């Protein structure tokens, strides 16, 4: 298969699918190397962007998806009679961030970090298709664990979860270090005392 033909086939497949398609799946069917498909996708994506076309090719983890170019979002919304999705609230963004960083994660974990009940927000993020349940923990109560969806990546313009900025390293923050030192000192002291008593 020639390079141009490969790109065209990729375009046709992604167009027909509409949804994200795994690179592996395309490679299997085309009988080509995974890397070759990935490279063809990169070139196609560059062409779309460079020629300022109406469509874009985006990578979501190991999948590829075609979407419309954001510059035309308003026009498209008007033609399709769609409404602009509402802004996400601060609460929703926080819960989403926790799930994105710590997935797969239970609601209880989210609540532990935020310090408040978050069931309403978790439910509404699930309704919006930004997170999805992905099994249950094998502990009493069998709580559901959640992860983010490909739709989350797309609607935040991310290629992969790895693109999220690192959380600040708090382990070595002044306050935590101080407390840790105090605790170590106390434990040592106690041990010494015990030792004294025993000896």
């Amino acid at each position, binding site marked *: 298969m020639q390079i141009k033909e490969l790109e065209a086939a990729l375009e046709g497949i992604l*167009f*027909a*699918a*509409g*949804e994200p398609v795994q690179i592996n799946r395309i490679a299997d069917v085309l009988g080509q190397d995974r890397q070759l498909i990935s490279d063809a996708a990169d070139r196609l994506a560059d062409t779309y962007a460079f020629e300022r076309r109406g469509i*874009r090719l*985006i990578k979501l983890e190991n999948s590829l*998806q*075609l*979407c*419309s*170019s*954001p*510059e*035309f*979002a308003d026009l498209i919304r008007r033609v399709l009679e769609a409404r*602009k999705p509402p*802004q*996400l609230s*601060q609460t929703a*963004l*926080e819960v*989403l*961030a*926790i799930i*994105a*960083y710590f997935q797969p994660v239970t609601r*209880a974990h989210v609540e*532990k*970090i*935020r*310090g408040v*009940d978050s*069931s*309403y927000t978790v439910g509404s993020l699930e*309704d919006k298709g930004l997170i999805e349940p992905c099994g249950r923990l094998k502990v*009493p*109560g*069998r*709580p*559901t664990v959640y992860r983010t969806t490909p739709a989350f990546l*797309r*609607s*935040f*313009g*991310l290629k992969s979860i790895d693109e*999220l*900025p690192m*959380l*600040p390293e*708090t382990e070595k*923050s002044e*306050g*935590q270090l101080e*407390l*840790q030192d*105090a*605790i170590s000192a*106390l*434990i040592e002291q106690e041990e010494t005392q015990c030792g004294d008593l025993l000896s």
Partner: protein
Amino acid sequence: METPTFKLEGIVKSKDEMEDFEGPLALILLLLSKNKIEIRDVQISVILEQYLEYLDEMKRMDLEIASEFIAMASHLTYIKAKMLLSSDEEPPSELETLMSSLEELRRRDLYAGIKFAAEYLRACRERGIGYFTKPPEPLDTDRCYSYIHPKEDLEKAILAVLSRGELEAEISPEILTMPQKIPYSVSQKTEEILSALRSRGTVSIRRLLTESQSRTEIIATFVAVLELCKMGSIILVGSDENPVVSATGI
């Protein structure tokens, strides 16, 4: 566990949420850990009796159920015992205080990081919100819809519409069914008259007018007839009482 003696209304929000719990003990444990019910309100003996009855009903002791039950019951007993003992309020040791404040500090630092990440996501959202995806192409040419939805999808959709709260204050059936303005263009009427003539040969003006649904339409029809006469596309025949238009063959 048909008749638990503790009240759960207002604590459990939905039936779905209930489904996360197998048996009442797991639920009580969770609620206790969230401080939503008081341990002293829970009569352990009653729960134990009910739970044992439930196990009896199952005739055969299922090992998995039993072990889970024992795990939960022991935890509950532990919590209750701790509550009973703590009435004497032994102050927490210095180590315990330090440990718990370290844990709280960790949580707070983490939460601060999350708030920062949430801001980052907000900015990303601005970028990502413009991407539209397309529906998959149907495999066959049959355009009939074949996806099977859960019926709750309809409920969700209608609630989404209703909850936007953009409904006008009052929607009377009259407003809904009565279009406020019907613009009839003369050119549109001209076309209609010509196509009527093509199929029927001649048409009485009375008929054209009675077929009109509103005053504006009647006016448009009348002007259209005059225009067509002027252009020579139609001629008027028939009597003064019943004028008839006829196509001139143009």
